[in-house]
């Protein structure tokens, strides 16, 4: 009976780990998965395997995955609109090109992180660490990126091909002190 409960927990944890959007959370769920599976080994009378699984699965592998995630490139995008509209769901629904851009970046093996900001574009350009800063006015879309970032060319080609109808202006600025792009 106890085994069945823990086996069902294993399946549920595996499904959760598969369906999370953030990789960091998936890693944590995998650590819990290993811990529960080591307990199941213990219930089936294999304490040797249980010790090995608990140490390797939930300690060493989790730390290794976390280190690997830190090496993985995170692409941060700041998005601001001209009018002071703080309703985020409204912005999300009205920017389909942003979703397409996100899908494109995922295809390029980056992890896009979009930050919807209520601040003006000047403060973002001055202070924030960004890879792309998007300023959306009524007619035009201004995209600021670092001139030395090699991903910018790919982004420009993609936007030109798929969203040529929008008035997109891409501006390459110099790398500032705070800008880690």
């Amino acid at each position: 009976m106890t085994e069945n409960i823990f086996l069902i927990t294993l399946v549920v944890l595996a499904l959760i780990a598969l369906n999370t959007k953030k990789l960091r959370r998936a890693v944590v769920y995998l650590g819990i998965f290993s811990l529960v599976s080591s307990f199941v080994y213990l219930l089936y009378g294999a304490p040797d395997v249980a010790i090995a699984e608990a140490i390797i699965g939930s300690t060493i592998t989790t730390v290794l995955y976390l280190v690997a995630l830190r090496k993985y490139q995170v692409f941060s995008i700041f998005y601001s609109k001209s009018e002071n509209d703080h309703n985020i769901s409204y912005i999300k629904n009205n920017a389909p090109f942003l979703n397409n851009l996100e899908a494109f970046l995922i295809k390029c093996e980056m992890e896009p992180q979009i930050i919807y900001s209520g601040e003006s574009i000047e403060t973002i350009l001055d202070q924030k660490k960004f890879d792309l800063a998007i300023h959306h006015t009524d007619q035009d879309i201004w995209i600021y990126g670092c001139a030395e970032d090699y991903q910018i060319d790919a982004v420009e080609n993609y936007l030109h091909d798929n969203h040529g109808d929008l008035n997109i202006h891409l501006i390459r600025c110099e790398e500032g002190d705070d800008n880690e792009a």
Partner: protein
Amino acid sequence: MTDRSEIISQMTGLLYPFILLFGFYIILNGHASPGGGFQGGAVLASVFITRYLVEPDRCIQLKTLKTAEKILFVCIILYPAFFLFATTANHSELMNLTYLIVMNFLIGLKVCSGFTIIFFRFAFYEGGI
């Protein structure tokens, strides 16, 4: 991991002796209770890995660890050969016990250095940063 946390560094400093004790217990008691060289070595390696979480500096000497691992590997091969050929045919209970404990100890140290080498190579020398 770049910004260090005072709580984590204090707590891992407190935990080191217990982890070491547990690892050596698993290794040295491996012939009688669950566990053995591999599991205990992995516990010992987790000491080095948690140390990386506290202060990620490069002062750990991978070359020494590599040499130690090679020497331990040669020992693991030589000791059973010595035990088989150099001693008499009918072994006493005490000799078997010593053989098991020494082999577990050697394997534990080798696994510990192997895991540490793999982890630090990955953390410091592979990929970006």
